[in-house]
């Protein structure tokens, strides 16, 4: 699975990360592996679409964690 980070998160965790997760891992569980991915402020996308916290992740998925937008 590919995980993408942006803005201040990219500085902290790197821009992109390849990671294997156990079967049945959902978005909430993936968040919990990293410090500071608070669901209230950091939006999760799975394959470019906003994902529910209980969405189950598979090995071919791409997950992006987006901190609050600063705007253009």
């Amino acid at each position, binding site marked *: 699975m590919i995980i993408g980070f942006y803005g*201040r998160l990219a500085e902290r965790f790197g821009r992109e990360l390849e990671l294997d997760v156990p079967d049945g891992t959902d978005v909430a569980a993936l968040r919990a592996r990293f410090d500071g991915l608070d669901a209230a402020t950091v939006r999760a996308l799975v394959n*470019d679409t906003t994902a529910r916290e209980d969405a189950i992740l598979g090995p071919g998925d791409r997950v992006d964690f987006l901190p609050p937008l600063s705007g*253009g």
Partner: protein
Amino acid sequence: MRIDARLAHAAFDPAKELAGFAAEGAGAVASFTGLCRSTAKDGATIAGLFLDHHPRLTEKSLHDIAAAAARFELSAVRIVHRCGSIAPGEAIVFVAAAAAHRRAAFDAVDYLMDRLKTDALFWKREDGVDGSAWIEPTESDRADRARWSA
């Protein structure tokens, strides 16, 4: 309404964007250029900006915002938005709207800038002499955005 919304990975020339913004039959073209300033809001000198972006969704957000300007009576709309490292004096954003009448062109550019300030998919870092800081939208940006019903 013709829509042209582009993410620019390198410096671009706003005057050329205006020149290329064909306004066949339009009576009114309004434009706005936002430039990288050399001072931050607190007055500190900044060396530049870094605008982080998503490889697909940032350009899509520009296109979606441009398309929303169909609420005005426009013949064409253009958005060009930089990403990456931007030096003071360089253009960050260029917006233009062409319409039969000037009120529609003015309102569209005003609307597009308010939308871009809150809804464009960017993460902005100000690089100053004393270090860098990631910026989040201000209350004033949110208030501007809230002037429009959608």
